[in-house]
């Protein structure tokens, strides 16, 4: 790995290399109504004057944690509306130019996830210009900062098409009940106090920042021009992912019953082991938890199967990410088709031999909607994940994970042709998940898709210098 100088952290938007660790987010989906006022706002929001307009947060370390943090993401239509010249727009990667909806087939956004069924605010991509994300410690602070953004240019700069609020659940859980936000890339030269040991190579910052060495030797993604617009920028696949929690829980119950009724329970979980769990549970509940763990690769407590195949009880929190699959070639502990092993095979043997560590992405999603209440499974409320998937190349990282690994399983011939059971675009006629046990396996079939895409956009996260450049354009 070539060691490069650490990039200028004051030039990079926050939340890319290190997370904000805030519990509340508001994504404002905006149409630019007055480009001049929008440009003015960009200049104000990057002026360093903390008294007026809320400032776009940078990656620079702070001595006092700010109560709110702000990010700006722009679509291709947004850059165009701000006045970026056509010759420069052409230098952006074509998947970004075309936009997320046009990549539906590749992303598996078909059937219920077809862009034609997306929510109203995403129906006309030419009107989605900016997504301003406000991260806050409290809903009150989020409200205040969000309003200040909308007041830009005396309220003339933007028209709000949607306001999407996300709130962290206790213990970092997301819908479906899993603990999330454990595994993130560790960037070379960047110190993050919450980094957990993970037995993986350090990740070059070029995995998320344009203009730097990428994890693929001798490959750099092209920097959109002019350089001060593209350099140190990043891309965000912003996806609104609705989760069908009731259906998911039903699937766990049906699968648990199937395993028990067919006398296979003792094959997958030693008898009575659930009595040693904290808290102890019934055999049936234990089977449900086991299925949940097998399809994701972690127990819902966050404990990885690779380290603890028979118990979800956390032993040492520092070890939550300190594992690899190299000694579990057949997926007896962590199935090859589980969500986390598909999305990051670590050093498992995979078909695309040079690709193991090259598709790392940063995830900063937050749940939205109320938690599922098992007593009122059909409450008619929408819930899901406001997914933020950050990378330097949407094609080579986000789309490649989603297409090759998550929805096709190309990385291992034993799962090719199957989709990720948790988030893949499954149809009951074809879906299947294999849980290897000893020298045989249990196959779960007939489940539908538990995650529906209901909106989203490919966003460019410009550097601070680039935001200033955009603010000072004179088209």
């Amino acid at each position, binding site marked *: 790995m070539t060691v490069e100088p650490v990039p200028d952290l004051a030039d990079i938007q926050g939340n890319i290399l290190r997370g904000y660790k805030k519990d509340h987010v508001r994504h404002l989906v905006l149409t630019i109504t007055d480009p001049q006022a929008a440009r003015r706002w960009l200049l104000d929001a990057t002026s360093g004057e903390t008294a007026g307009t809320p400032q776009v947060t940078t990656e620079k370390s702070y001595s006092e944690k700010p109560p709110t943090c702000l990010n700006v993401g722009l679509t291709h239509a947004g850059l165009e509306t701000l006045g970026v010249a056509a010759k420069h727009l052409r230098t952006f*990667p*074509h998947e970004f130019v075309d936009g997320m909806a*046009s*990549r539906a*087939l*590749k992303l*598996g956004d*078909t059937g219920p996830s077809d862009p034609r069924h997306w929510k109203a605010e995403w129906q006309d991509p030419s009107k989605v210009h900016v997504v301003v994300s406000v991260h806050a410690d409290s809903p009150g602070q989020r409200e205040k900062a969000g309003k200040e953004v909308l007041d830009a240019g005396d309220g003339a700069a933007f028209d709000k098409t949607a306001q999407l609020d996300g709130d962290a659940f206790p213990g970092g859980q997301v819908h479906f009940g899993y603990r999330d936000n454990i595994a993130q890339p560790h960037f070379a030269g960047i110190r993050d106090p919450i980094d957990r040991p993970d037995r993986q190579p350090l990740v070059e910052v070029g995995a998320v920042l344009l203009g730097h060495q990428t994890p*693929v*030797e*001798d*490959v*750099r*993604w*092209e920097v959109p021009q002019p350089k001060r617009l593209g350099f140190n920028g990043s891309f965000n696949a912003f996806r609104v992912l609705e989760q069908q929690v009731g259906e998911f829980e039903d699937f766990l119950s049906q699968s648990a019953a199937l395993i028990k009724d067919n006398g296979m329970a003792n094959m997958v979980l030693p008898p009575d082991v659930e009595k040693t769990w904290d808290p102890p549970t019934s055999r049936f509940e234990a089977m449900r938890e086991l299925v949940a763990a097998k399809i994701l690769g972690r127990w819902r407590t966050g404990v990885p199967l690779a380290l603890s195949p028979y118990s979800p009880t956390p032993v040492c929190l520092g070890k939550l990410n300190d594992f690899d699959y190299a000694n579990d070639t057949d997926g007896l502990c962590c199935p090859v088709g589980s969500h986390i092993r598909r999305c990051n095979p670590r050093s498992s043997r*995979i*078909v*695309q*031999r*040079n*690709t193991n560590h*090259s598709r790392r992405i940063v995830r900063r999603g937050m749940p939205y909607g109320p938690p599922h209440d098992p007593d009122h499974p059909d409450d008619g409320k929408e819930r899901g994940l406001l997914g933020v998937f950050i990378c330097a190349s949407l*094609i*080579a990282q986000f*789309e*490649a994970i989603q*297409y*090759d690994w998550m929805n*096709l399983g*190309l990385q*291992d*011939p*034993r799962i*090719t*042709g199957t989709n990720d059971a948790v988030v893949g675009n499954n149809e009951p006629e074809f879906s299947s998940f294999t849980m290897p046990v000893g020298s045989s396996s249990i196959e779960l079939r007939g489940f539908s898709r538990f995650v529906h895409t209901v909106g989203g956009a490919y966003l460019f996260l410009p550097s601070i210098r680039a935001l200033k450049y955009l603010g000072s354009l004179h088209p």
Partner: protein
Amino acid sequence: MVTTQPSKWVQFLQSKLTQPGEWLLVQYWKHRAPVTTPTWVWKTAPGDNLQQCMNLVMPLADKTDVGRARAAKAVAANVDEIFTGLNNVGTVHFARFDLIGGNLCMFSVYDGDLENYLRDFISVFGSVFDALMELVEAPPPTPCGLHPEAFIDWIIAHDAFQITGDVPSLFPDEGNIANLPRDVVLLLEQHPNVQLGRYSGYPGKSAAQIRLATGIDW
């Protein structure tokens, strides 16, 4: 289906059309109703993600026998590296180099998405391709590792357009079958090289699945 016969006038005009006349007619059609080809949508249907074809037709800068000999030499000099590289890409069923007319061609069958395939390509044997690019007409900027997007765009532009199903399946909204020839002409006008169909002896299987089933290390 009812098809209408062109009127006597049109038949007369058609019989009189010479090659330049036909060319003019095509330009007129193009102007009236251009055929758009959203590559991703047409090239890949959802279940169509294994055993894809790449038919790379790269016009040589020097099309003389000496130029073609140079191309043959460049391939020969790098062939071991290329084939080892393809092995590492892991998703390739077949690949071969051909000299056809004044073109250096690489025909391959691979699994997954073309853009991912090409990126794996760059990381595995980018330097070999850099050497080949010295011999072709209007090459992309090199080294390809520093210009991956431009390289991939160039390859896609030189990959033969693929008609994977029946020709009519390309025009699902085409109500009038009599218009089909016009649309096909326009399509060909846009794409000099076209793959018209393909057959697979073992459909729906990846290269690694075949290797696994036949006891070859994947």
